[in-house]
């Protein structure tokens, strides 16, 4: 299948001082197929948000793409577009939903203004037309009394309603890809489930691909077709959801899965991966980035960086432990 979004060997650098820069993302490849839901997991600071933002050129000002490519629908080189040109894809082809619905909407503008501007911008609708479409859209995402809602301000609404509005804005122009960066983290559990249901409904109705970033492995397992595990700016394991959950291959993924509290049995002590995520400057420059925290590390791990090794079709991990069995997977195309 041709990927909808194809990120190839992406390198993103943070300019620290005039002369010095550090890599935030390094050799990162990831693709998302049409209608597919891909989950991205990894500890805080590994670069999930920055990755999602860089797709639309929205990364922080001090960061720049210095290598690799980002292709959308195989013909649009997002990595290589001028700001004026990439704007056309924002919101219309690729839309984003952010974590905190409290701060992600503008409290100084009515909900209506913030929704209708999408139709006016991307579909060239008249004011009246845009309003009509907004009302229909609100109905679609399960927002009651849409007419009244248009005149209200975000701060008057609950977190769940705001996130529905965020989603409504995101899907307003029928994007091919929806990027959701921890869309439910800030919400109550019951609201979380509703928002996830809504996202599922949208995916099924519109065949929208979703890139879902979450700390919650339960949510990921529930929603995704495929999972990419990130560590220190790289994808260290990637594969179909079942493979990752049942046969994780990378020691980091294994640790991550062991640290989920199991609801069935009362565990006395929850496993946690020793050590902390390295800061941008402390990242291991030589060898495997996970080595300082890895219980399986051997000398070789400190001297040479592991490439991605295939474990099974579509499943690969960046760890030397796979070297004997699989062989190098230089082409895992999903």
């Amino acid at each position, binding site marked *: 299948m041709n990927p909808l979004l194809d990120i190839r060997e992406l390198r993103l650098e943070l300019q620290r001082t005039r002369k010095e820069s550090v890599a935030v993302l390094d050799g990162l490849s990831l693709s998302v197929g049409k209608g597919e839901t891909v989950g991205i997991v990894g500890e805080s600071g590994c670069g999930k948000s920055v990755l999602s*933002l860089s797709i*639309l050129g*929205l990364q922080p000002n001090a960061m720049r793409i210095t290598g690799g490519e980002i292709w959308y629908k195989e013909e649009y080189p997002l990595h290589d577009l001028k*700001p004026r040109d990439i*704007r*056309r*894809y*924002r*919101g*219309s082809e690729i*839309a*984003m939903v*952010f974590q*905190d619905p409290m*701060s*992600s*909407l*503008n*409290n*100084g*503008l*009515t909900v209506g203004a913030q929704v209708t*501007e*999408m139709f006016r*911008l*991307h579909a060239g609708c008249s004011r009246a037309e845009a309003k009509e479409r907004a009302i229909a859209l609100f109905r679609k995402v399960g927002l009651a009394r849409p007419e009244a809602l248009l005149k209200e*301000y975000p*701060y*008057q609404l609950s977190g769940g309603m705001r996130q529905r509005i*965020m989603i409504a*804005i995101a899907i307003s122009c029928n994007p091919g890809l929806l990027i959701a960066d921890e869309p439910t983290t800030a919400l109550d559990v019951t609201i979380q489930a509703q928002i996830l249901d809504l996202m599922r409904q949208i995916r099924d109705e519109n065949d929208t691909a979703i890139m879902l970033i979450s700390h919650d492995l339960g949510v990921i397992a529930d929603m995704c077709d495929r999972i990419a595990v990130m560590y220190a700016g790289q994808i260290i394991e990637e594969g179909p959801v079942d493979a990752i959950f049942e046969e994780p291959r990378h020691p980091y993924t294994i640790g991550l899965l062991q640290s989920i509290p199991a609801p069935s049995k009362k565990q006395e002590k929850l496993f946690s991966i020793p050590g902390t995520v390295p800061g941008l400057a402390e990242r291991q420059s030589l060898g495997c980035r996970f080595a300082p925290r890895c219980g399986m590390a051997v000398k070789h791990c400190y001297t040479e960086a592991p490439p991605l090794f295939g474990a099974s079709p579509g499943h690969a991990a960046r760890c030397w432990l796979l070297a004997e069995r699989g062989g190098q997977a230089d082409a895992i195309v999903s």
Partner: protein
Amino acid sequence: MNYFVRRLLTLLLTVFFVVTLTFAAFRIIPGNPALTILGTEASDEQIALLEAKLGINRPLPEQFIDWLRGAAALDFGQSLRFSEPVLKLIGDRFPVTISLALLALTITIAVAVPLGIAAARSKGKAADMMISIGTQLGLAIPSFWMGIALILVFGLVLRWFSVSTYVPWSENPYLALKSLLLPAIALAVPQIAIVVRYLRTTLLEQLNLDYVRTARSKGLKDHSVLFRHVLRNALLPVITVVGINFGELLAGSLVVEQVFTLPGFGSLLITAIGNRDYPLVQGMILLIAFIVVAVNFVVDLSYRILDPKIRMK
């Protein structure tokens, strides 16, 4: 209590305090209006006679209550010095001062908002630096000094403006504007500096917020993000600063009028104080206090109207 009523009461109370204070202060400090009018040669009887005629020999509380009663009916009495109604004297001079202050305010907003936006947009770049140096200077130079410099350059050297010929608005609006322009600029400069700096800060603060990222992710142009989403939020706190500074602007006009010899409140107030012209001083102070408090009230109110977060509560 209703917010509006509460504010109105505070407004009246504040004005009352200011007026009481002025009344008390001027009776306590030495000086006698009868003496100033008659000169040092006057005999004690002459002075006593005039004091009685002016009504300033009566007990202070009685005078105060009398004055208050008059003021409530918008009768501020007669000027001791000019033997004309205080209201007429104020009416003659006030338009000059208030139009100077309003013109300065207009210039401030018209110049400071674009400059503040430009500074925020070019943060850290050359333009931002230049604006920063400019505002630094604007804050450091006193208005009267700036006034003198403007007179020198535009009045005496370039001769673009005729200095010190005030023309009332009713006579010739163009000439009136022309005669007020230089003093208004002198007054506006420090205000511009304050507003530019503040707007730059609030803009940068807003630009860092999450909703800006959302707006950009929608595909909006940078200038739509700025003007449609950010500017309104960033201007709100600026309104307060402008309002608070309006008192300063009025005080500044009194001084700058002197530099440009405009027939405004400044010279009248100085004469009135020098002559211990109690009714005139009180009338003028009352008006100034009222304007300052009223402007603050209006600012507060407009803030409420403009900020949906407060409006809804």
